[in-house]
């Protein structure tokens, strides 16, 4: 009964069962829908994860106005500061929410605003530092009433 063929068949089945786990894990760190856009923003440069923190309420009642704070760990000196922060949405019809440009005079790399979110999703922030490196962070928001941005 235990022919090699049968064993191979079973191992392929087991592989298939495990396969869906992989894209899910990748999506968690780096939503697939945004990978291309992020590559365009960074002009192909690698994005490190860390240093960037996105703060939102875990549960937002109203997607029309979700308070959001993005902060980057940086000394904000002339030699080492944050140049820009780009906010991206995983599910909005226009994924780029906003881009903020700071400089060494900011003193503190933090911006607070209010955003529209079309449903529960991850909000990703990509920061470019003065040395040209990119860092990212994200927050997961549960939206009870979405902003219905695409009128659907």
């Amino acid at each position: 009964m235990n022919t090699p063929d049968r064993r191979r068949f079973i191992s392929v089945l087991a592989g298939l069962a495990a396969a869906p786990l992989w894209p899910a894990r990748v999506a968690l760190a780096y939503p697939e829908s945004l990978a291309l856009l992020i590559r365009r923003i960074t002009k192909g440069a690698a994005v490190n994860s860390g240093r960037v923190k996105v703060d939102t309420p875990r549960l937002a009642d109203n997607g029309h106005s979700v308070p959001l704070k993005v902060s980057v760990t940086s000394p904000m000196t002339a030699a080492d500061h944050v140049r820009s922060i780009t906010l991206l949405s995983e599910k909005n019809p226009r994924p780029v929410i906003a881009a903020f440009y700071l400089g060494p005079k900011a003193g503190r790399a933090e911006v607070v605003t209010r955003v529209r979110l079309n449903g529960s999703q991850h909000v990703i922030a990509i920061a470019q530092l003065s040395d040209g490196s990119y860092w990212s962070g994200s927050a997961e928001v549960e939206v009870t009433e979405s902003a219905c941005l695409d009128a659907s």
Partner: protein
Amino acid sequence: MNVRVQLPRTAKHGEVIEVRIAIQHPMETGFRYDQMGKPISKNVINSLVCRYNGVEIFRAEMGSGISANPFLQFYTMADASGALEFFWGDDAGDQGSERALITVAG
């Protein structure tokens, strides 16, 4: 366009101060329809610049993902008395500006 700017009136030299601005604007997404079923065209404040004594300290490029009546809070190092000026414009070509004064001691 009604606008409100909040920042401390006085600060110590080298102090990092909080700057807030809120502008009354619908930030129309372009995805909505009026009562006649006609699409309402997109009209958002697409850019805002803040200058401190003429030097740009903050710039925001915004899209329809920013809520109506956009609010922004950011920081700057108080290094000289003078004015913070804000300039912005929307997709319809309307422009606005506002200024606030700060006195820096020491």
